[in-house]
């Protein structure tokens, strides 16, 4: 047991504490999981629970659009399909949450196929425009079959996600953390590498023997699955699934959160939601200029941090080793993996006739070869 604990500590120190970015993420997650026990204020828990739900949604958009480069402007379709499916199953068939949310997520996977197949041959702005059309089509269906969908009013009176707000929070938080870790793991896996390759150069990927169509469809389905989980959670948390879940605003929110936090990073999308969604609540102190301030903050952040908030912070806290590309804390002088010097004194202007000596005047990359 003692040996096992020592092993865990070693791993924790070597994998988490060694990098400031990971330490911050770990600490934030720990605080988010412990804080509600100490201060279970229902409003705070409401905002945080919704933040976790939207974090899954934003990360699922990042998976498809950031990692695979399939710029989806109608991501709300996955969210909305799952929300409506969960709501209808719960209200009309009386199924419990444990069934409705997973079935809703499966419905979103099917929606992923429905959107993905016709979009396989489309690229760039054509793909984006095509994806934009799908939630609009679905919205039309919602208004056409009002006896099932409730039309403008939506499907309301659903079973609560859990009997108390604290339980609701922990369900959202655990599902959120697990889903985000799963998305992160996918992008870090062999599959993630293939998806990344498709984004960088689809022709080259195909030339290397990768069935890009199949992988793009997988990406659509995976993204749909996680957005669907978020949609099902949202419907039961709000106790209503309405046309807003399919609206353009819902799609664009995911894009704004992800680009603000840092696209193609997953953690950036999560950071974006955790900064922007609660910030909108904080800005209630100035209701008249609330949305104006919100927009101004986003514009300013993107002006000075064009790659997003999270990568900007990580760039300042961590240094990439020029040799092995491993990340190191900004305080380190040498790479923790290969020992390459990370801080190299400024190159002295060589005085004529003077020979440069040793590695002192070389840049780290020159030295590392």
């Amino acid at each position, binding site marked *: 047991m003692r040996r096992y604990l020592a092993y865990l500590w070693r791993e924790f120190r070597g994998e988490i504490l060694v990098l400031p970015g990971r330490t911050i993420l770990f600490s934030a997650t720990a605080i988010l999981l412990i804080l509600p026990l100490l201060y279970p204020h229902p409003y705070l828990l*409401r905002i945080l629970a919704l933040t976790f739900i939207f974090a899954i949604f934003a990360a699922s958009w990042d998976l498809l659009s950031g990692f695979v480069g399939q710029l989806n402007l109608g991501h709300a379709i996955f969210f909305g399909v799952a929300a409506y499916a969960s709501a209808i199953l719960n209200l009309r068939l009386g199924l419990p949450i444990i069934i409705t949310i997973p079935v809703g997520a499966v419905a979103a996977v099917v929606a992923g196929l429905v959107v993905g197949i016709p979009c396989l041959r489309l690229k760039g702005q054509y793909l984006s425009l095509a994806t934009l059309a799908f939630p609009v089509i679905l919205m039309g269906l919602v208004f056409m079959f009002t006896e099932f969908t409730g039309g*403008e009013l939506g499907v309301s009176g659903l079973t609560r996600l859990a009997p108390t707000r604290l339980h609701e929070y922990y369900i959202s938080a655990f599902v959120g953390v697990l889903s985000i870790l799963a998305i992160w793991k996918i992008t870090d896996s062999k599959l993630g590498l293939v998806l990344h390759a498709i984004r960088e150069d689809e022709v080259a990927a195909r030339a290397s023997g990768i069935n890009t169509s199949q992988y793009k469809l997988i990406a659509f389905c995976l993204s749909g699955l996680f957005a669907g989980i978020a949609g099902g959670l949202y419907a039961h948390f709000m106790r209503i699934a*309405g046309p*807003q879940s399919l609206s353009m605003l819902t799609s664009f929110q995911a894009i704004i959160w992800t680009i603000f936090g840092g696209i193609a990073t997953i953690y950036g999308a999560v950071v974006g939601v955790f900064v922007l969604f609660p910030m909108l609540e904080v800005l209630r102190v100035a209701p008249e200029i*609330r949305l104006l301030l919100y927009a101004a903050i986003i514009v300013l952040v993107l002006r000075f941090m064009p790659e997003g908030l999270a990568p900007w912070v990580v760039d300042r806290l961590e240094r990439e080793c020029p040799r092995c590309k491993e990340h190191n804390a900004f305080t380190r002088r040498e790479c923790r993996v290969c020992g390459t010097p990370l801080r190299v004194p400024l190159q002295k202007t060589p005085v004529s006739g003077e020979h440069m000596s040793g590695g002192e005047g070389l840049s780290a990359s020159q030295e590392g070869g």
Partner: protein
Amino acid sequence: MRKKWLVLLVLAAFVMTGLTFSGCKKPEYIKIGIIGPMQFLQGRHHWLGAQMAEEDINAAGGVKIGDKTYLVKCIQIDTNEILSVDDAANAVERAITVDNVDFLVGAFRSEATLAMQDIAMDYKKIFVVCGASHTELSNRVASDYERYKYWFRVTPENVSYLVKDSLILLTYVAGIVREELGIQVPKVAVVIEQAVAGDPLAAAANALIPTMGMQVVGTWRPSPTATDVTAELTAIRDSGAHIIYTYFSAASGVPYARQWGELEIPACSVGINVEAQSMGFIDATGGYGNYELTLNTLAPGCAQTDKTIEFYNKFVERSGEYPTYNAGTYDAIWILTQAVERAGTLDPDAIVVEMEKTDYQGAAGRIVFDQRHDVTWGPGFVTAIGTQWQNGELKCVWPYEWLLPGMTEPLTYPGTVKYQIPPWVLEAYGG
């Protein structure tokens, strides 16, 4: 020495101030959260109506609960519900748990109101709606009374009554057409904008109008964002319609009315045109909006009750706008505070019992709640009114000698004038 005196003087001043303030009784407040989309007209009117009620109630001595007197304090809660349902639900939970409001009054968009209703019921907060019209809100009271009994609606009438009122208004105009133009079976063109709420209205109009001694000549569905409806109006002219039955909830009501007047379409226009309820309508239509008839809640000079004109004028004076039904927060707060006084406690269950006994003469009519906690509709209670633009002024034209089975006297609100058929329609049919 002088310095010492100065110090003593300042100290004495502090002591005196402290004594003075400690002698004052700190007022206690009943906090009412006014919820609405505050950046939009609907929310603004919620807030203005509520502020007027707050001032009037506090000036009249506040609210007495037992031996204690409370002042009313309205707290503005911007729900942003037109744009976001989440935002609305978050705002309501914040109002209850952070601002610690005792009651909630307002709300506008039905989809958001359903979400807000659930939160209010979780906390057993009395929630009085002044804006959302959907029947689902009151159906919930009927289906699960114990949970939803804290919910009430003061304005508007629920959506099924709105349809009923608009068809009664059509019957009224058809009667005048029969009388003045001698057309016994008027032809009706149904013009309903392409909005979700318009679908049942179009179906109801097509099903019911033929049973009302009229003939439907066609249904036209212009876009809610249309800026030109000439094609529809020309087709209506060709159809030989004598009356146009309208439903415009959005901005397209302005181009419709402008072109109807400009092209002098020989048919009376009657129904719902939300734009025609606003003060700037005549200017927006370039003066062509005259004779447009729409369902409305309040009108200048029309006294549904003794309180209407005073409230109306005060509201116009403060805001420079005609009050919409959202300003019903004024009546809602009076009803609520009177129920609190009768209950003699802030216990929501006791207040609900008193709210159910409400029989209150408000600005828009006599307010009595039905079993679903919805405002009771009908002559002698609350009905909509019909307003027509005549010579650039908004006039109440209906109810005008309105007689229903069971009524002993016809109903005409003071200040109501007779409906005027547009002169070009009179000319076209030799009236």
